Structure formats: C-alpha cells, structure tokens
C-alpha cells in the first residue's frame, strides 16, 4: 500500500511541476466547454434570403413581410432578376431565394391556387431541411390568414380540420445548449483521460526511465494502480468542475441524483484510463500512442450519439456501438441530468460500463510486461 502511495505521489508531482501541462489540463477544457457549447448549435437564425418578387401585389408583399418579421430570416437583398440572386448564392452570400412569379395574386384569387418558389442552398443538407421546414411553416401560416380574409363561408363548408397541439417536455424552450453541455463534458473528460494515460507509460519507455522502474520490487498491479489513480482523481475533479461551470454559465438542469453521475463517472474513467494504458502497452513511441488514441477517440466520439442520433444508424453499426464506452456515459449523463432518470432507468447502461471496466482493466494488466 505504501508503495502505491509513493508512485501516486511521484505522478502528482510530475503533473503539477510541469507548468505548461497544468493550464492544458484544467483551464483549456473549461474554455473549450464554454466556446464549443456556444458553437455546437443547430438552431437556425438569420437565414439569409434574397427576394425576387416579380408580382409586386399586396399579397406577395405581405408574404415577404412575413419572412421579414420572422426572427429566423434576414432579407439580404431584393431584386427583379433571378439570375442576380443565383449569382449571390454562388458566392455564398445568401442561403435561400424566395421567388414570387408574375401574376401570382391574380392566379391565386382566380384559380384558387398559386405557386411560390423556395430555392435553397443545400450543400449542408441538415440546414437546408430545416430552412425548408421553417419556410413552409411561415407560408402555411400566411396561407391561413389569406383564407380567413378572402374565403366565403360557402367555400369553407364541409371542410374538416384536425387541430394538432404540440408540447415539448423536459426542455420546453428547445434550448440546444442544455443538451450539448453534458455531452461535451464527457468528451473533454475522455480526451484528457485517454491522452494522459495513453502517453504516460509510453513516455517513460521512450525516455528510458521505465527500465529503472522495471528493476524495482514494485509489483505490476501496484505500478498500474499508482499510474492510474492520479488521472482518475484528475478526471473526477474535472467533471465536477465542468458540471459547476455548466450550472453557473448555462444553467443546465440537474433533475436527477448527482450521485449516479459520479458513480458512473468513476466506472467510466476506469474504462477510459485502462484503455489508454492498453494503448500504451501496444505502442512504442508517444507519436504512435497519440495516433492510436486519436483514431479510437474520433470513432468513439462520432458514434457516441453526441452530434447525431444513434437510432438512425444502421443496425450493424448500432450493434458495434455497444463497444463504445462514450455512448453509455453520454446517455447516462443526459438521462440523469436532463430527465431525472433514476437508477432503474440507467442500470442497463451502468452495468454495461462495469462489465466493460472489468474486462479492459484485466486486459491491460495482462498485456503489461515488466520488461522493456
């Protein structure tokens, strides 16, 4: 036990004496949390529109003013030439062209039907889809007004309607930040944990100091525990720190029991740190270790459901995703923090993490050899 304490002490000294590492471990992640959470947003604002109104009737003008009044849109330009508008789109200055063809109002009142055109820059498919949804919604609202103003009761007779009301639970204002904070926090803790542990032993190998430890009576298990403990503590501390920042700055809800969060985090960090340790036993230089960890990290992050939903992945990928520790922890964080799920709700993910931890710790210990 005393041996372990000495190793822990040595590791802490090493971390805290390295003046350039300290800010990277403690300050950079928090700055990143603040910056990235603000950046990671799908909320659409200021869709830049170029209006080509060839009709210039009161109906078409009112339609344009509806777009103008919406906080989602910003009218960038009004012109009478579609070609000019398209050139603007080519230059990347507008996201959408709203074109009202000539004779729009006449056609609407006479034939009871008329068309307007939305031309959307769809290079970003996701935004294009949302832009389309918003625009259609504005048009439908306006259409309803037009019908109310101009339609006679005779025209409306026999038409049935179903009213749909919708409500959003757990986050009625659809605030995207509260969804992202728990996820990005997991990301940052993971990056720090995996890189620190992954580089640690390999560094001693590269510099040659591992030889000195190999010839001491320190046992394998003591050495590994001593190496991992400091990062485990740093990781937990960082999570707590990040959660407080999230609470203070973004006012994220904490519906559930924080105990569950830290319990899961403790297990999760074991998984991540042992994973780093495993990487460091199969590589020989820090460069390799870094690349291998980077590779796994990118795959883990992308498949974790942080940015895209897991349900829409193909079934084989969802099966593969069971090997992804990030997926479990992000789910637990979001469920507990945002919805107040209890232990029964998260137990499936929690026990998966426990099994994962046991497996990967034993693998790492087995792989580690006390020879250079």
């Amino acid at each position: 036990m005393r041996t372990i304490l000495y190793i822990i002490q040595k590791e802490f000294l090493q971390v805290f004496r390295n003046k350039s590492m300290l800010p990277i471990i403690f300050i950079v992640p928090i700055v990143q949390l603040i910056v990235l959470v603000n950046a990671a947003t799908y909320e659409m604002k200021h869709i830049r529109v170029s209006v080509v109104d060839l009709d210039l009737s009161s109906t078409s003008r009112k339609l344009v003013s509806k777009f103008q009044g919406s906080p989602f849109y910003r009218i960038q330009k009004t012109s009478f030439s579609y070609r000019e508008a398209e050139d603007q789109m080519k230059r990347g200055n507008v996201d959408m062209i709203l074109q009202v063809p000539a004779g729009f109002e006449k056609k609407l009142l006479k034939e009871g039907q008329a068309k307007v055109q939305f031309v959307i820059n769809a290079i970003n498919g996701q935004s294009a889809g949302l832009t389309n949804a918003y625009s259609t919604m504005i048009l439908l609202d306006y259409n309803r007004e037009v019908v109310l103003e101009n339609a006679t009761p005779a025209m409306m007779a026999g038409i049935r309607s179903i009213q749909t009301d919708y409500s959003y639970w757990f986050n009625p204002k659809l605030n995207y930040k509260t969804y992202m904070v728990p996820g990005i926090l997991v990301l940052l803790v993971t990056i720090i944990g995996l890189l620190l542990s992954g580089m640690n032993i390999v560094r001693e190998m590269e510099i040659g100091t591992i030889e000195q430890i190999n010839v001491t009576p320190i046992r394998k298990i003591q050495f590994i525990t001593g190496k991992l403990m400091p990062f485990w503590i740093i990781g937990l501390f960082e999570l707590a720190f990040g959660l407080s920042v999230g609470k203070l700055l973004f006012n994220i809800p904490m519906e559930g029991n924080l105990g569950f969060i830290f319990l899961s985090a403790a297990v999760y960090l074991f998984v991540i740190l042992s994973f780093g340790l495993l990487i460091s036993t199969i590589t020989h230089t820090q460069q390799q270790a870094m690349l291998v960890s980077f590779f796994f990290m990118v795959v883990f992050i992308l498949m974790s459901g942080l940015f895209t939903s897991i349900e829409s992945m193909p079934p084989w990928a969802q099966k593969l995703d069971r090997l992804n520790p990030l997926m479990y922890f992000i789910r637990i964080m979001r469920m507990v923090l945002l919805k107040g799920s209890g232990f029964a709700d998260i137990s499936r993910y929690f026990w998966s993490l426990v099994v994962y931890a046991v497996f990967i710790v034993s693998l790492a210990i087995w792989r580690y050899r006390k020879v250079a």
Partner: protein
Amino acid sequence: MRRFRGFVVKEFYHIFRDYRTLLILFGMPAIQLMLFGYVLTNEIKDAKIVIYDPSRDVVTRKISDKILSSGYFVLERNLVSVAEIEPAFKQGDVKLALIYEPGFAGKLEKTGKAHIQIIGDASDPNTANMLVNYASGIISNYLVSMNSKKVPLQIIPEVRMMYNGELKGVYMFVPGLMAMLLMLISALMTSLSITKEKELGTMELLLVSPMRPSQIIIGKVFPYVFLAFIDACIILVLGKLVFGMPLLGSVFLLLLESFLYICMALSLGILISNITNSQQVAMMISLVALMLPTILLSGFIFPVENMPGIMQVLCHLMPPKYYIIIIKSIMLQGNGIEYVWNETLILIGFTALFLALSIKKFKVRLA
C-alpha cells in the same frame, strides 16, 4: 544540396519504418469516410413512439397507421393512461407521444374539428422538433386526402434544393474530413516529430551539424507534405467513387489550394514545436486547442451562421473554415478562382503569419 537530400531520406526512413503510424495515417481517412457515409445521418428513422388512443375508432386507427408506416416512427406500445407517458420518456428510448382526444371520429364528424396532442422528448431538442414536424405533416396530409373538396386559396411552395438535391451528408463531410485530417497530419505530426528530437536530445546533434536551421526544418516537414497530399487524394478518390461526391471545378485548382492549406498547417506545426519542449505539451496543444475547434468551429458539422456573434468572430480566426469554403465552392459549385480568391489570400496571410512567428521564436541553442 546532397546533405539536404540525405536528411530528407532519413526522415522518410523514420516514417516508413513505423508501420503502425503509417497504417493509421492511411487507414484513418478510409474508415472515417465509411463512418460518415454509412453510419452517421441526421435523418431520423425508426424513432420510438407511444400512443394513447382512448377512442379507438376508424379515424384514429387510420392516422396511427399512416404515422407508423411512414418509416420515421415505430410503435413502442399503446398506453392505457396518460400517466404512463413520463416514465416512458424517462426510460430513455421513447421520443414522442401521441394523444387522441376521446370520441375522436364522432367529434370530427359533428363539429368538423378534433384534437390531437403531440408530446416530444425535448431533452434532445432537435430530434424532438423534427419528429413533431414530421408527425403533424403526416396528419395534415391525411386531412387533405380525407376532405373530398379542395381547400380554397392555396399557396403551394415549390422547393428546389441547389447543388445537393438529395440532401446528402457526404457533401458536407468530405470537405470537413479533408480539413481535419490534413491539419492532423501536417500540424500535429510535424510538431511531434520536431519536439521528439528535442526531447531525446538529438536536436542538439542536428543543430551542430553543418546544415542550416532552415534546411533542418524544411527537411523535417517535407515528408509530411507528401503524406498529407496522399491522404487528400485518398479522400477525394474514395469520396468520388464510393459516395458519388461531385467534382465540378478544376482538379488542379483544388490540389493547389490543398497544397496551400497544407503549408499553412505545417507552419503552424513548426510554430508549436518552436514554443514547446516536450511531445506531450505539443500534442495537447495540437489536439485540444486545434482539433476540436477544427471540427466544431469551422462549419464542418455546425454552420457558422447559426452561432452567436462572438463565436462567429472566433470562427473567422480558424484557417480550416476558409479551406472548407474553398473546397465546397470548387467541388460542388464548380467555381473558379474568381470566386475564392478572397479566402485564398486569407490562407496565404495565415501561412505568412505563422512562419514569421516561428522564425522569430526559433532558437539555435536549446539550453
């Protein structure tokens, strides 16, 4: 010159003998492309819903059928009371709840009006928003087909999606992946390889050799230009062949711009290695301070226009952003240099800035 060539050959040996690193460097673009192409979509399929239907008549059953056969939703279960909704959400899998009012068909027949309530699990606000939109869209479509008479005074939107008719995600991630991987290889790998010589003490040997410092640095980064270029080509070819990513503009211009971007990243890598002394610090700076912003602040995943004002200013300081704009413009819109010279100049500016800074920070003596 011969001395210099010998040095470059040494660097190539260093890299090519390390097969693990090579495997990852060339395997990474392929695997990430596959991930983005086949696995990650923003479309929503098979979202689980629960339905509370106390009236159980022809109309409600038909609406439920329409919703469940749309491909967006699968039924988790039918509820017997409204109180079951919250636990269903808390267990985590159910995304949407659909609640009909009692006596639905009867009310619709008599008064011409009936109510449906849709509740979304907005702990994931985007998905909730989209699912609610899908569901209400399906319901209003059903309504149109149910009404025999045409609704008067309809304005019909005609939507045209430019440059990417099928809204494919691949159009976003090929440019993004190129920006990310070129940055990784150029900035990260060079900074590591230079700091490694410092850490192991071999930098001292190089500095006392008759080679000039500029030769050492150029010799160090040269192989990585080569590797980065190969990676860029792998991504382009795979993107084209496997995912049908169009390449409308000039390939030459595209490669030229990529070369410029690689130079920018390399000078950034040199700068990092000049201000750090250990690989760990260099790596942490590159990864934590470069990679995440490259992914999130460059418009790769999240569009820059949606971010708050200060963030947008930050985004303008991210070189990858300009590179991504350039590639998209060349590949997808077929634009020539006249549309992207602005961004090109900015990249050149960044390169010059980083180089000037690294020359200023360069020390011929280590201790």
